[in-house]
């Protein structure tokens, strides 16, 4: 009897911990006059911007109620996939901009062309228009964007007797110059060969958002023009050389910490910080004592900067496409975009928004970010397999950061990514 009880207990234990893959999902409560908006939770300002759009929409559409569901960023893609898989219970949803092609390939996004006047579409910056378009059709509406610059701690440069880098794109530093400056400005007070003040760090240090411009700046491409292969691109000599340089910043030049240390730049422990445009808002509002400027994104052979952030799409399976598009437009049309900028301070996606705030975009650092978005920004590769691409390339760069051979890692990543891309053919 005791043995049977024990086996039963073990079996229950086993079953209780066995992972089950959810699929299908139950249908949500659905009302004819209800629209479901699935949004990524990215802080209170963004929430306020969405709520303002919902107020406008509900005023213009009496009797229709918008139900807003917010999901933390880390879980957003998984939850959105589950919600979309159920085929209902979602009408409008936030789309991470590099995933537009992935959703498009899987017919998850409503084609928006018939809802948009030409002027409205042309008002989006070219790079965002390109991201929103899949197989020649507009399937998402850009909401916010980003650029990246080299944030420089002026006081640390002065203390080291170094000239502070210029902010004009013509004064753009090469990556070799950055290494040289980082070595000079870095401080190791205790002499233990671990810096007390670091020379250089990359904010999202293994995400393709930040690492792809390195290889693209060195003359490589992230993917074939038709999006069908990365062979000959990620494993090219130029890509490997850039990836090796990336690893050297941690292991050979030793100018960057190998694991991210929170708040290094904010606390004056980092001289140069390659970081997205929104860091300027954080520094202004929360760290007024840090004396900083933003220099242009450094380069190897040509200037390439990251861009892209969030778009909004309408689920192709929505029962109420017209209403869903109306909600989308209430959040992303020109006037809403201006209001969004006032609330969120995101880099705009519309030319009309840039022009509406000359006091912001004619001065640094936003003047520089705008210039980069128009002139040097390259979006992440548009492939249905972007999630896999991102994860596998991220692993490769993480390994390189931790000392693995760049050539071996980039070649292995190329094979793995190609295997994933083939699944979508």
């Amino acid at each position, binding site marked *: 009897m*005791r*043995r049977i009880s*024990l*086996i039963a*207990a*073990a079996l*229950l*234990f*086993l*079953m*209780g*911990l*066995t*992972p*089950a*893959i959810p*699929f299908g999902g139950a249908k949500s409560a659905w009302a004819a006059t209800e629209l479901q908006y699935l949004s990524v939770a990215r802080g209170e300002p963004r929430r306020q911007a969405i709520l303002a759009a919902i107020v406008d929409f509900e005023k213009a559409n009496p009797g229709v109620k918008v139900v807003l569901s917010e999901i933390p960023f880390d879980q957003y*893609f*998984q939850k959105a*996939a*589950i919600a*979309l*898989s159920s*085929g209902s219970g979602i009408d409008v949803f936030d789309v991470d901009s590099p995933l537009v092609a*992935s*959703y498009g390939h*899987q*017919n*998850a996004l409503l084609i928006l062309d018939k809802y948009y006047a030409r002027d409205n579409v042309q008002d989006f910056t070219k790079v965002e228009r390109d991201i929103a378009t899949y197989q020649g059709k507009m399937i998402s509406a850009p909401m916010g964007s980003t650029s990246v610059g080299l944030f420089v701690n002026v006081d640390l440069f002065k203390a080291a007797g170094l000239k502070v880098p210029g902010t004009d794109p013509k004064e753009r530093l090469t990556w070799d110059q950055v290494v040289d400056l980082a070595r000079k400005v870095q401080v190791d007070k205790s002499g*233990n*060969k*671990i*810096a007390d003040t670091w020379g250089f760090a990359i904010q999202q240090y293994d995400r393709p958002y930040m690492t792809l411009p390195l290889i693209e700046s060195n003359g490589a491409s992230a993917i074939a023009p038709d999006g069908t292969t990365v062979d000959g691109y990620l494993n090219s000599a130029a890509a490997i050389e850039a990836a090796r340089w990336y690893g050297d910043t941690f292991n050979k030049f030793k100018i960057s*910490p*190998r*694991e991210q*240390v929170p708040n290094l730049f904010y606390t004056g422990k980092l001289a140069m910080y390659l970081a997205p445009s929104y860091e300027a808002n954080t520094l202004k509002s929360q760290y007024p004592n840090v004396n900083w400027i933003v220099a242009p994104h450094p380069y190897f052979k040509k200037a390439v900067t990251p861009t892209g952030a969030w778009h909004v799409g309408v689920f192709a*399976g929505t029962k109420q496409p017209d209403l869903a598009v109306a909600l989308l437009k209430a959040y992303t049309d020109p006037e809403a975009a201006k209001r969004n900028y006032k609330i969120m301070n995101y880099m705009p996606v519309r030319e009309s928004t840039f022009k509406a705030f000359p006091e912001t975009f004619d001065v640094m650092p936003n003047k520089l970010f705008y210039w980069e978005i128009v002139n040097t920004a390259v979006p992440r590769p548009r492939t249905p397999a972007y*999630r*896999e691409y991102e*994860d596998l390339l991220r*692993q490769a760069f*993480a*390994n390189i*950061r*931790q*000392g*693995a051979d760049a050539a071996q*890692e980039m070649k292995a990543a190329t094979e*793995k990514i190609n295997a*994933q891309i083939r*699944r979508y053919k």
Partner: protein
Amino acid sequence: MVGLGLFKLYPIMEGLRLSFYDVRPIARTQVFIGLANFIELVQDPVIVKAALNTVLFNAIVTPLQVILALGLAVLVNRQGRAVRVFRSVFFMPAVISLVVASIIWKLLYAPDNGVLNGVLIAVGLPAQTFLTSQSQAMPSLIGMVVWKGVGYWMVILLAGLKDIPESVQEAAIVDGASPGRRFFAVTLPLLSPTLLFVVVADTVINFLLFVPVYVMTQGGPSNATSLLMFEVYRNAFVYTRFGYAAAVSTALLFVIAIAVSLQMRFLWVEFEY
């Protein structure tokens, strides 16, 4: 029974069914592909590496946790205020959330600014790479997991020790048995049902371990710490390959079932007292 069927058996059967399909959740399609997922997983170097890692991880962690937990349980199986304090200290890691513990240990292990390297450098020893090197990542992970689990299993074994009648121990003392002989000839056999439960439950938990890998290493570097459960997660929720993830999950279920059966077969001891 209805609850058991609905919340335990149904998900298992559904997982088993999905493992024979190519599931595209966003496109809302499921295509029957027979054994293709299983054929792919035995040829997938990442899954094979994760399977080997999982077996190695279990072969080290489970015995280590059980032996240390048993040792601690024997040490604190007595009365006294100091013993109660030690019991609490040993048990403390078990009440800390696994996520929080993983974050704390990741910070401890940080190669450039971590506490452990700070201590090593302070005493004149070279800094270590810990989670960032292929050779040290798995031992570092094992260290954290052993620390986290020992206290929990200690309490269960302690309950088993308390369950052994004092009269049996007293009889052994009267018979002149040494402490060592009493432990191996009296305590251990009488503790065997509890010990078996601990071994089986610990094995299951360690086979299904996910959080420390997710938080501390993401399976890296170069898949050195990737365990099968992490690959289930990665395939299901990063690559949205639910069918393939279900196949890995199903394979893992069978591996666990075999491991548990072997443990039942070889560790089961009939006894009476």
